[in-house]
């Protein structure tokens, strides 16, 4: 993972014409941009068009980013804005509501490891798609790589920083409830 100074250096080098530095930025943050996009539940051409819009914008803004060491946050914010535009255009709900408690908590709050093999990634991804949209977005941001700070997540989701922790817990309860229901 890159230090802030390394990110700044890549931004500066890319701004002065070094394409290898640009590739370094894409390698460092391409997955992060994708996490945001998938967190807003965009797929296929919608998702890839948002990603490309974000990176094309970055190319033209690279020498005027106010805080180069926070390029990741700039990219995530730009991705969020473009995702919201796509969602609005297609008339899809933009989930901004509070996350309720799961109505059917998993038995004992346990998720037996037997529900999924250690490598059963698909079980997690399927379960993620079944939790409330607000949770999908938050959970994707929480597992983004490189990690986003709670300050950045709070800005991206327009929620108070102090409510991220409790909402994280509620969302993971939703995930447990879905996976527990699958196991029984």
């Amino acid at each position, binding site marked *: 993972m890159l230090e802030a100074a390394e990110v700044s250096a890549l931004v500066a080098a890319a701004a002065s014409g070094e394409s290898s530095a640009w590739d370094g930025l894409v390698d460092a943050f391409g997955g992060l941009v994708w996490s945001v996009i998938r967190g807003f539940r965009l797929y296929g051409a919608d998702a890839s*068009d948002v990603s*490309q819009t974000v990176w094309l914008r970055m*190319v033209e803004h690279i020498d005027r980013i106010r805080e180069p060491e926070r390029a990741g946050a700039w990219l995530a914010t730009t991705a969020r804005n*473009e995702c919201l535009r796509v969602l*609005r*255009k297609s*008339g899809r709900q933009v989930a901004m509501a509070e996350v309720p408690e799961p109505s059917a908590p998993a038995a004992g709050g346990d998720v037996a490891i037997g529900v999924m093999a*250690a490598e059963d990634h698909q079980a997690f991804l399927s379960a993620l798609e079944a939790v409330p949209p607000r949770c999908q977005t938050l959970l994707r941001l929480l597992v983004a790589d490189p990690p986003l700070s709670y300050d950045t997540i709070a800005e991206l989701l327009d929620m108070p920083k102090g409510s991220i922790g409790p909402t994280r817990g509620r969302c993971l309860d939703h*995930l447990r409830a879905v996976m527990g229901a699958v196991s029984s």
Partner: protein
Amino acid sequence: MTDGGRAMGDDEMLQRLGAATRAADAVPPEVLAAARASYVWRTIDAELAELTYDSSDGELVGVRGSSSIRSLTYEFGDSVVELEVDEVAGGKRRVTGQVAPWPVASIELHQAHGAEPLVLDADEHGRFRAEGVMPGPFRLLCRFTTAAPMLLTDWVNA
């Protein structure tokens, strides 16, 4: 592969979720390749007009107006570019607009998904029209008959 049914804590759930997204829903290679290739679009001798108005930013969720037209305004200094983007048959876009106030020599429409830029003429009022624009990111590069520098609109996803 059960483990006695022990509860999985929040931290471990999150760790496993992260591993799952990285293993099974990672950024596709072609998306990364397109991101790297975006660098070739870098234009250093034009002024960048920022998007100052997008009609799609204010719409109510789930409400489709009678018109599918999206209005966009870009500004840099005294320069203003106003566009209307409409979806036409076949999923393509029609882009009509006006560039003001400097007299336009020519306009290039750059498409992320198009092989070549579209070269457009503008009338004496700076009005122009482009048909058959691919959906996805596009922008305009405006050249003027005066000594004014070229004007580039910020990429927009249409």
